[in-house]
């Protein structure tokens, strides 16, 4: 069965001053998959995420989301695309003057006809699904730990049941237990809700635990894509170092132990 392509990038170029971050970059993201994007520092993983999420137009290339041109479309069309996507920023990027529940309610307010009570209940549901305790909804972001802020950020990103979520380093700064719980959360949510997940990460354990496919950014484009097994066979020096380094061996060992 041919899989549906939900995000299609062709010939993307991003240039900062004289420094090109991406040149002629192509990438396909399929419906329902969890795609992990890896790459060294400065290879433009976050820039790529911001491009697709519409926060930064690329200098050249085309972006198709849900089969629709996302760069040359009207603002209304772009808004419609945005409503079908959710972004979780690295530190949650929650609105600091709103409680967690109010943060999650913000996207729900754009839906006509939702009663305040139902909106509140749906926000509570998303908070619970993100693995936060009920009373966290009344807290302000500054009263939460980093891991809880990330969960709250995820709850807000999922508020409208998007088809695609973008996660920027979801497990960075979490302790190993919190990180693996977050991996399971993402995996579970993507299966239950049929989510497509575009995840920028450095965390080898996350790549093992929840990614269906991995895209490696190197030499200013998406150099390789494939499953973890395929990555392990690639000869490129950086990719080899990345997936065979001491940390990678530890991650593989835990994975094998778990099996």
């Amino acid at each position, binding site marked *: 069965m041919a899989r549906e392509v939900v995000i299609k990038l062709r010939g993307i170029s991003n240039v900062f001053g004289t420094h090109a971050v991406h040149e002629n970059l192509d990438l396909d993201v399929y419906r329902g998959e969890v795609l992990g994007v890896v790459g060294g520092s400065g290879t433009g993983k976050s820039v790529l995420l911001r491009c697709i999420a519409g926060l930064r137009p690329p200098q050249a290339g085309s972006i198709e989301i849900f089969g629709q041109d996302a760069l040359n479309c009207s603002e209304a069309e772009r808004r419609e695309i945005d409503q079908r996507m959710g972004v979780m920023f690295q530190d949650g990027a929650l609105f*600091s*003057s709103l409680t967690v529940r109010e943060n999650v309610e913000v996207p*729900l307010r754009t*839906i*006509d*006809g*939702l*009663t305040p009570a*139902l909106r509140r*209940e*749906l926000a*509570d*549901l*998303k*908070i*619970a*699904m993100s693995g936060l305790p*009920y*009373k966290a909804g009344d807290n*302000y*972001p*500054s*009263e939460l730990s980093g891991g809880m802020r990330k969960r709250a950020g995820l709850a807000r990103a*999922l508020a*409208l*049941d998007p088809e695609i979520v973008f996660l920027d380093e979801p497990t960075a700064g979490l302790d190993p237990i919190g990180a693996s719980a977050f991996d399971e959360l993402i995996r*579970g*949510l993507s*299966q*239950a*809700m*049929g989510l497509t997940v575009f995840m920028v990460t450095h965390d080898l354990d996350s790549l093992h635990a929840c990614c269906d496919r991995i895209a490696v950014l190197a030499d200013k484009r998406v150099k390789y894509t494939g499953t973890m097994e395929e990555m392990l066979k690639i000869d490129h020096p950086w990719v080899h170092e990345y997936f065979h380094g001491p940390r990678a061996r530890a991650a593989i060992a835990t994975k094998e132990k778990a099996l």
Partner: protein
Amino acid sequence: MTADPSALPAPEHAHLEGGGGAWRLSGALTVRSVSAVAEALENAQGELDLSGLTRLDTAGAYLLQRHAASLRLHGAQADHAALLERVASSMPQPPEASQTPFSFVQILDRTGRMVAGAGRFLVEITAMLGVFFERLGQIARHPGKLPMTALVHHADQVGWRAIPIVSLMSFLIGVVLAFQGAVQLRQFGAEIFVVDLIAISILRELGILLTAIIVAGRTASSFTAAIGSMKMREEIDAMRTLAIDPALVLFVPRILALLITLPILGAVANFMGLFGGALMSWIELGISPPVFLSRLIAETGTDHVMVGFVKAPVFAIIIGVIGCHAGMQVGGNAESLGAQTSSAVVRAIFAVIVADALFSIFFAMMDI
């Protein structure tokens, strides 16, 4: 019973049909369509067939699970069933609401807290003042500790850059005083006393008081915003871990800069106020500048000037300490920065006026 599709502009809608004990749900039950069937589901009981659902999201699944007690769900497609299960496992469990009704005790409680808060504020301000003088003492013993660059920078910010607005304001005050005084004094043929009126009111009270109020608005807010945003981003904690004393590098140069520049601003205000008054007296009453000047010198004692200037350092410390203290009270969010900034201005202006009133009483009792 059917949900009215015309009430829903979105392309997605769900239909609830049936009656008695058998219901059937079809269409797309998503966050955009739940509100249309929410009420109808409220009254439905018995069996609910989900085989006609084309789309289901968490909002829809939540709505169905909420009625799981009165409706038996069946016929769901595999992925919908999985979603229903997932939602069922994380249904929010609100704890028993423990809201106490608004009562007299609550009012007392709130009043008590406010009084205690005001008391704590006074203690904290006093502590801040103590810290400032203690650090000044340190600097007196080790002059090398004085952050000279910061001091000059803040003196430029709070003093030099305030000169245009302070000059303009006191010039206009002088004009207004001369004009108002002229109208009244002309009735008695006592025009010349307008010089005394202007000189005494500006030198003794208005020059320095209005300067302090303007500086409180300009400077207390900027102190609070600058220190508060550093506090918000944990820069002040970082300083402490690096063995840098925040009081020495943040508070001392700011308050000291105010202490140095406020009297100078006061002098500028006095001069401009007298200038405005003299100009208006000349135009309105025909009192020529030489006459104004000789009357000013002959009749206005220097003690009026001294009374004015004695207050300047006190106002400077009040404004500086309140501004820095409010900055340190900023919490983790952007809203508290705004709240503290505006309350710093209000408190600083209020405290300056209270201090001015106390000075007036003191000078009156001392017959100065």
